[in-house]
C-alpha cells in the first residue's frame, strides 16, 4: 500500500511536469495541444541521440540544457510554421492541426530511428538503484525525476508571478486585446509560451528515459495522461495541473496493482471521463467556464 502511494506520487511528479506544459499552452493560447505526448517522445529521442556523445555510463541528466534547447527550437519552429495560423480560429482547426502534427512527429521519429524500442544505456546503478526504507523502496531515477519535476513546477510558478514575461503571459491569457493595447507583444508571448510548453514535455521525456524505453508511438499514452491531468486540475491552472498529475500517478499505480497492468491506461481514461462528465471545470476550477 505504502509502496503504491510512493510509486504513484513519484511518477505523478513527472506527469505534473507534462501537465504543466500542456496547461501553459492552453492557458495562454486557448488551444489544447494533442501533440504534447509526441513532444515528450521527441525529448526522449533527443536524449537517446545526444547520450551517445557523452562518455559511457554517465548520467543522462547532464543533457538537460542541450535537450531543453533543442526542444525550445523545435517548439519555435512548429509554432511559427503552423500553430500561429490557427490561433483564435475555432476549435476544430487546431484539433485537426495538432492531431496531424502528432501523427507527423510520430512517423518522422520512426523514419529516423526505426520502429523498435531503444534503450538509453544508463548505468545499472542508476536504472535499478533504490533507497529502501522499512518495507518500501524508492527507486532512484523516479526520485530524481520527481525532484527535478517539482523544481521545474516551482520555477514556472515563480516565472509566471514574478517576471515581466510571465506577467505578460498572464495578461495575454486574460485578455489578448487589452494586453496588446498595453504594449505587450502577444505574438512573442505566444511563441515563448508554446516553446516553453514543448521544453517541459521534452524535459519530462528526458527524466523518463531511465525508466521507459522510447519507441515512436510512446507519445500517445502521455498525451492522454497530460490531458487528464490538465482537465482534472481545472484548465489554465498551474497548481491544479500539479495536483492533477499526482492524482493521475496514484490512479495509474493503484490500478496496475489491483486490476491489471494492461488496464492502467483505461483506468486513467475512466477518471478523465468521470471528471469531464461530473466536474467539467476541473476539481479546483471555477464554475464559470463552459466546457
Amino acid at each position, binding site marked *: 500500500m505504502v509502496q503504491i502511494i510512493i510509486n504513484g506520487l513519484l511518477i505523478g511528479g513527472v506527469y505534473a511536469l507534462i501537465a504543466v506544459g500542456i496547461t501553459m499552452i492552453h492557458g495562454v493560447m486557448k*488551444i*489544447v495541444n*494533442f501533440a504534447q505526448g509526441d513532444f515528450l517522445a521527441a525529448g526522449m529521442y533527443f536524449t537517446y541521440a545526444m547520450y551517445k556523445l557523452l562518455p559511457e555510463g554517465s548520467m543522462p541528466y547532464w543533457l538537460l540544457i542541450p535537450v531543453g534547447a533543442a526542444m525550445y527550437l523545435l517548439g519555435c519552429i512548429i509554432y511559427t510554421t*503552423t500553430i500561429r*495560423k*490557427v490561433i483564435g480560429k475555432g*476549435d*476544430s*482547426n*487546431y*484539433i*485537426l*492541426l495538432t*492531431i*496531424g*502534427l*502528432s*501523427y*507527423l*512527429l*510520430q*512517423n*518522422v521519429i*520512426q*523514419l*529516423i530511428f*526505426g*520502429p523498435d524500442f531503444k534503450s538509453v544505456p544508463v548505468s545499472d546503478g542508476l536504472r535499478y538503484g533504490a533507497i529502501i526504507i522499512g518495507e518500501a523502496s524508492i527507486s532512484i531515477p523516479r526520485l530524481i525525476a520527481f525532484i527535478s519535476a517539482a523544481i521545474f513546477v516551482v520555477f514556472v510558478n515563480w516565472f509566471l508571478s514574478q517576471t515581466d514575461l510571465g506577467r505578460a503571459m498572464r495578461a495575454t491569457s486574460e485578455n489578448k486585446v487589452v494586453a496588446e493595447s498595453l504594449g505587450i507583444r502577444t505574438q512573442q508571448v505566444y511563441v515563448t509560451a508554446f516553446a516553453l510548453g514543448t521544453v517541459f514535455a521534452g524535459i519530462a521525456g528526458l527524466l523518463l528515459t531511465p525508466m521507459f524505453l522510447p519507441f*515512436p508511438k510512446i507519445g*500517445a499514452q502521455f498525451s*492522454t495522461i497530460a*490531458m*487528464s491531468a490538465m*482537465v482534472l486540475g481545472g484548465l489554465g491552472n498551474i497548481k491544479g495541473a500539479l495536483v492533477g498529475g499526482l492524482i493521475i500517478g496514484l490512479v495509474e499505480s493503484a490500478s496496475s496493482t489491483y486490476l*491489471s497492468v*494492461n*488496464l492502467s*491506461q*483505461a483506468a486513467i*481514461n*475512466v477518471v*478523465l*471521463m468521470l471528471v*469531464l*462528465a461530473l466536474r*467539467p471545470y476541473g476539481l479546483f476550477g471555477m464554475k464559470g467556464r*463552459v*466546457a
Partner: protein
Amino acid sequence: MIKVLKKNLITFIFITICLIFPFISANQYLVRVLMEVFFFAAMGNAWNIIGGYGKQTSWASSIFFAVGAYTSIILYTRHGEISPWISSLLGIAFAIVLAIFIGWPCFRLRGVFFSIATIACTTIFRQLLIYFEDFTGGSLGIAFKIRKGNSLWKLHFTSEIPFYYIALIWMLITVVIVMYIERNRLGYYLRAICEDQDAAESLGIESSKVKLKAFIISSIILSFTGTLYVFKTGFADPNTLASHDMAIRIGIVAILGGMGYVWGPVVGALISVPLLELSNAYLQDFGGGVAGWALYGLLIVLMVLFRPNGIISIWNDIKEIIWKRKARRKEKPHGAKA
C-alpha cells in the same frame, strides 16, 4: 432526365467507371485498392455526418467500426457460422447502445472537450478488447478458419469482384444517406448548431439530442462497414481495428476531401487510400515503411493550413471562376453597345 444527367455529369461518369472497372482492368491489385477506397469512403461519410456537418471532431469512429467487426466475426467463428447479414444487425444494435452510452456524457461537452472525451473512450474500449482475452482473442485478435466456396449468405467469395460490388453499393448507399440528412431537418439543425450552439438552442433546438441522433446514424454506418470489412480481410485485431490510427484514418478521409460536403469523403478516400498504397509500395525500404504515414500527417497539417475546406473546395473555386467568366462574357456585348 437529361437535365438531371447534365447536372450530375461527373457523378454519373464516376459511378459508371466504378461499375465497369473490374471488367476493363486486368489488374487485380487496382480492384483491391478501389475496394479499400469504397470502404473508407463509407466510413468517411459516417464521420462527415458528425464531424463535418456537426463540427464535432470525433475520434471514436474506430470503436463502432470494431464493434461491428468483432460482433460478426465472433458470431461466425464461435457460434455456428451465423451469417454476417444477421450478425451485422446485432452489431448495429450494440453500436447504437454504445453510441448512446458514449454520446450522452460527451455531447454535453463542447469543442475540444468532446474530442478529448472521444479519444479517452477509444483508449478504454481498445484496452478492454485486449483485456477480455477469452472473448476477443486479446491483442492477437480473431481470424477466420479457412473457408471455401462462394456464398453471398456467408459473404465468402473466391474472387474479389463480388466484394468490390458490395463495397461500391454500400458506399453509394451511405452517400444517399448523407444526402438525405443534408437536405432534411437533421442536417439543418446540425449546421445551425455548428454555426452557433447558443443561438440554435435559444431557437429551441435541443443540441445534445440532435448531435446524439447524428452520432447514432454515424455509428450504424460504421458498424455495418466493420462487418463487411472484417469479412473481406478475414481477421479482426484490436491494434488495427480499434486503434487511434484507424480513427484518424477515417477522419482524414473526410477532412482531406472536404468536411460538410456530400462527396467530400469519396474524393478524400480516392486520394488518401491510393496515396498510402503507393507510398507503401515505393517507399517500403525507406524507414521501415512508415513514410506513407508520415505523409498522411503532413497532409492533414497542410490541409488545415491552406485548404481548411478540403480538396472539393478547389473544384468549387474553379466552378466559381468559370461562372464569373461566363457572366462577364454575357456582360461584354452589352457594354460594347453602350
